[in-house]
């Protein structure tokens, strides 16, 4: 289980209606059902992972988040979760807008490209960084729109999204991101977790 799942769970109210976009094998979905008794749906593009979710008894829709979120009505979920997937979309801005349309709130987690180890890798080795959260080579990575925690905060401000909660994760330890500590969190954390609304 990814360390951020516990933090995501803490952001969610019991018995709420949740959509997990890019839900993978449904590990977060199962966790949220157990922890928060949520009514949860998943959307996933990989046929193998869809099968795994069905085998777990999860309600899953095979589909591509960039094309298939359109079908959900406005504010049809309390929360829409996007866990470490934003960077893989052709048009992340459009996806975020869709998340905020269909969800009352969205929870977005991003691998932080501003993390010091990544910066150091590029600085010293001069090749595209490979880390635990970003394990692929540049030529086969699905991650085409990587950003830093700072980028995401600026993006949200620019677009007038309200960041109700901004959490940085460093060695699996969470801490709040504030304007005053943004530079240091952007350097020291490998993951950002944001609760957003419009």
């Amino acid at each position, binding site marked *: 289980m990814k360390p951020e799942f516990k933090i995501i769970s803490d952001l969610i109210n019991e018995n709420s*209606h949740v959509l997990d976009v890019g839900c993978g094998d449904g590990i977060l979905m199962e966790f949220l059902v157990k922890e928060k008794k949520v009514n949860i*749906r998943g959307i996933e593009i990989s*046929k193998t992972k*869809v*099968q795994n979710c*069905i*085998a*777990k*008894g999860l*309600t*899953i*829709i*095979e*589909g591509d988040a960039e094309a298939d979120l359109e*079908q*959900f*009505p406005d504010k*049809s979920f309390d929360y829409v979760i996007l866990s470490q997937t934003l960077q893989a979309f052709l048009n992340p801005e459009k996806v975020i807008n869709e998340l905020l349309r269909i969800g009352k709130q969205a929870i977005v987690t991003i691998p932080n490209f501003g993390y010091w180890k990544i910066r150091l890798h590029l600085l010293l080795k001069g090749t595209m960084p490979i880390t635990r959260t970003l394990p692929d080579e540049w030529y086969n990575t699905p991650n085409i729109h990587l950003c830093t925690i700072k980028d995401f905060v600026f993006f949200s401000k620019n677009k007038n999204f309200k960041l109700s909660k901004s959490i940085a994760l460093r060695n699996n330890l969470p801490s709040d991101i504030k304007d005053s500590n943004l530079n240091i969190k952007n350097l020291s954390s490998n993951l950002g977790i944001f609760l957003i609304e419009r």
Partner: protein
Amino acid sequence: MNIRENIKTLIIKKPLKLDCGQNINNFPIAYETYGSLNKNKDNAILVFHALTGDQFVTGINPITKKDGWWSYAVGPNKSIDTNKYFVLCANVIGGCMGSFGPSHENPETKKIYGTDFPVITINDMVNAQINLLDFFGIKKLFAVVGGSMGGMQVLQFISNFPDKARAVIPIACTSNHSAQNIAFNELGRQAIAADHNWLDGKYNLKNTVPDKGLAVARMAAHITYLSKKGLQEKFGRKLQERDDLKFGFDADFQIESYLRYQGSVFVDRFDANSYLYITRAMDYFDLVKQNNGNLSNAFKNTKAKFFVISFTSDWLYPTQENKEIVIALNAIGANVGFVEIKSDKGHDSFLLDVPDFLKALKNFLDKSYLDK
């Protein structure tokens, strides 16, 4: 063909008003069951058959002596596990395996109906079959499931009877028949009508059968059930029991021989007029129009859990048409899952040994059975 002996039949006394306006009563519904109904009567699955199917879902069909049409999916320990569930399937009205259809005698004229039989719809089919629930004392089915025309009946069933099933599984189907599908059905009907033995549907009176026309209808339809890739891999340009082309019109190619065979075995088990009536029912099916242009309205009164399944190589009821059902359900926040199964076997995939499909179906059913 005396087929009555092996057929269980329920006579429906209650009048049924058909969509065409006519009323029918005292009509037979032929059915078969597999597995056993539990004490709470909550383990029943109603299976709906497709165009040329019948009530003999699995095991050996007592009439054709061949495997039931869904033997891959239904049986002990299979996807629809008859050790666990009570499986119920009825021959559709308009059909020719014992249910009220055009090969039956009109009690008023004492003659076989033929094309005097009323035109029936998918709606009429499910309204006839709901009587089986009363007969078995089933208040609520665990699931309704079916592929192709069976899937259309699934959708119509839950629309008509929103609280009569917990799980709803339409497979490789559509909410309204496309122009292409109406066209293929019309081709089949015209092939039958062009057979000089059809006699405007009165062939029973003259003891003849329009078998050539029906065989051509089946051959044409059979092509639509497969995929180009599947056909190419199975047959390619392989020759039939010969080393070279014969410069004639015999079946030189294996695919020709295969289609001729499919046509010839079909006429032994199927009635030409039933083929007309059932294809017509499919063409008339339009759940969108029934709901004034909004498919979601068909499902707004049900709390059932849906699972929609399509196949990548199905060009008769393509994924997009199945997805429209999913979209309509999501629009009203219904509990719906969807999976597109990768298969080269075309529309027929749901009838064949396609492990990913059989696995998904089993997992969905077994997990859904637990959440009461």
